[in-house]
């Protein structure tokens, strides 16, 4: 087991390294770094000065070294607009995004799991068909459009819910729904297929052969087992939600990291944009690592693979 963890750790670290390399190269090679890394509106002389200061005329690997060393110190640059270190800025906004993601996740699980179970138990009957339609809609409707339409209905026409900002519990309702909608459909689909697989398993067969009532079989034997892959997916999706929330946060002016990213591109605040990608990617690599370990704990076969 230890060997497995070490191996996976090595892979993750390699991924993180590659991540920074990819971002670094993309900026240096495809864009004009001197324009990007400099405040908008700088004069020609400023540009020259900045080039020297940032070492943009040094060889690439030296620049990369500089880049990495500042990253490792937690220095992701300074925001042009806010005039504060980007990392601090990001961290100050992160709790809002996490709150939104958690609310959206709760919604998606509360809707997704029961409907997935019902769709599996009543497979190919009414509930399943309804579930399929729901899944299709969830995967086809862009989250930000759902948000906009909800504002139209609940803020403009009905006046029940506030359309932007944060502050009260009511403020989180629509953004959470808009963000969670897609994931509710994804979770429903996975719950359904996982449940179907479990319902066809040998131990469920034996449970029925033991004469246990069907509801009992589903609630006790099938449910717990079916939930494992769903919950691990949910863990990964939580982090994905934080990243994907850009548009929803923009629509609802929710002050999370997604909105920060939007501000970054609106104000040509490149350090913010770059940092968001780096941190976002890092979070996903970390979560993937933990999920892999978790799977190995649950299923001993995985430890001896590869």
């Amino acid at each position: 087991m230890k060997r497995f963890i070490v191996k996976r750790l090595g892979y993750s670290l390699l991924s993180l390294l590659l991540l920074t390399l990819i971002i670094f190269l993309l900026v240096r090679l495809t864009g004009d770094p001197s324009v990007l890394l400099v405040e908008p509106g700088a004069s020609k002389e400023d540009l020259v000065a900045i080039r020297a200061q940032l070492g943009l005329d040094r060889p690439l690997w030296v620049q990369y070294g500089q880049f990495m060393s500042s990253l490792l110190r937690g220095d992701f640059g300074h925001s042009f607009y806010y005039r504060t270190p980007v990392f601090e800025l990001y961290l100050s906004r992160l709790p809002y995004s996490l709150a939104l993601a958690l609310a959206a996740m709760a919604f998606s699980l509360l809707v997704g799991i029961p409907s997935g179970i019902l769709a599996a138990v009543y497979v190919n009957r009414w509930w399943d068909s309804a579930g399929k339609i729901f899944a299709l809609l969830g995967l086809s409707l862009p989250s930000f459009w759902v948000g906009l339409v909800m504002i139209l209905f609940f803020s403009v026409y009905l006046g029940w819910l506030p359309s932007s900002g944060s502050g009260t519990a009511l403020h989180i309702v629509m953004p959470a729904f808009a963000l969670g909608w897609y994931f509710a459909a994804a979770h429903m689909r996975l719950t359904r297929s996982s449940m179907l697989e479990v319902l066809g398993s040998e131990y469920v067969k034996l449970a029925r052969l033991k004469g246990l009532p069907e509801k009992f079989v589903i609630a006790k034997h099938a449910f717990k087992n079916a939930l494992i892959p769903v919950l691990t997916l949910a863990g990964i999706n939580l982090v994905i939600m934080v990243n994907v929330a850009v548009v929803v946060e923009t629509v609802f002016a929710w002050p999370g990291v997604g909105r920060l990213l939007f501000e970054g591109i609106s104000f040509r605040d490149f350090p913010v944009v770059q940092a968001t990608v780096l941190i976002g990617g890092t979070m996903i690599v970390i979560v993937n690592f933990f999920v892999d370990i978790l799977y190995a704990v649950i299923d001993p076969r995985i430890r001896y693979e590869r």
Partner: protein
Amino acid sequence: MSALLEVSGLSTQYVGARGTRVTRAVDDVSFTLEAGRTLGIVGESGSGKTTLALTLMRLLPPGARIAAGSVRFEGEELLHKPEAEMRALRGKRIAMILQDPMASLNPLFTVGDQIAETLRVHEHMSRRGAWTRARELLGAVNIAAPERRIGEYPHELSGGMRQRVVGAIAIACGPKLLIADEPTTSLDLTIQAQYLQLLREIQRERGLAMIFITHNLGIVAKMCDAVAVMYAGRLVESGPVRRIFDAPAHPYTQALIESIPRFGDTASRLTAIEGQPPDPAALPPGCAFHPRCPLVMDRCRVEAPPDLEVAAAHRARCWLAVEMPAGAAAKG
């Protein structure tokens, strides 16, 4: 005295998508089983033996239906019973053991929990009572240190122990009939003998009747009083074990017996049966075995032989049984 289990004319079919293909998984099967006796059901994979077992328990997958026949257990007709009554029967009066113990046990619950479950549902025992009884049952299936094992999870036990747990679950409520579907196939050879020994003990102690489904004739010889041979969903031969082994009437049975390698055999090659078992959805006309039969006659290709009596309690579906006088079957 009526038999414990009387099956007559049982037929189960799988209906393909959109009702187009009909596969006859079990076709006109009849046999009886007395209390305390063991019947072996032998056949290759795809012969329908597992479907037969599931039909008796009325736990067929969706898409399968019982087309005809009757199953009488302790005088009651099972095929028309409402589901609630069947459920009361399963696990309590008729129990079943499946092939792969690792897959049969839920990995998330302890061994004790899974035994106690049956007791609580059927005997309405309290948690404590069920737990105590579960411990006793673990001892009854020869698991050492049952107080420790009872709290363990399936993956912490060895394969042989797991199958014993499955056995404990089966006998927990004192059934009259135990159906064992290839219970030793997943076990190591050395463990197999022990497990069979255990089953015999349990059977003797509790007066259990057993249906033993296997593809291994050696086990049948050791464990069973009577044997029924299945091929392509039909019962092609049935009778007392001694008789079937000494004088098999159906060429398939003969071939099966011959293909068992024996010590002292001086022949240099193993005898195998030519050809493959037929696709259940596309059975050949006439006798299903005729493409592979060394003694095939023209009649076999056209007409499926009925269930004919060869001798007392010895039946076979073969046109040869008509031609040959009872008791004088020559080895092929």
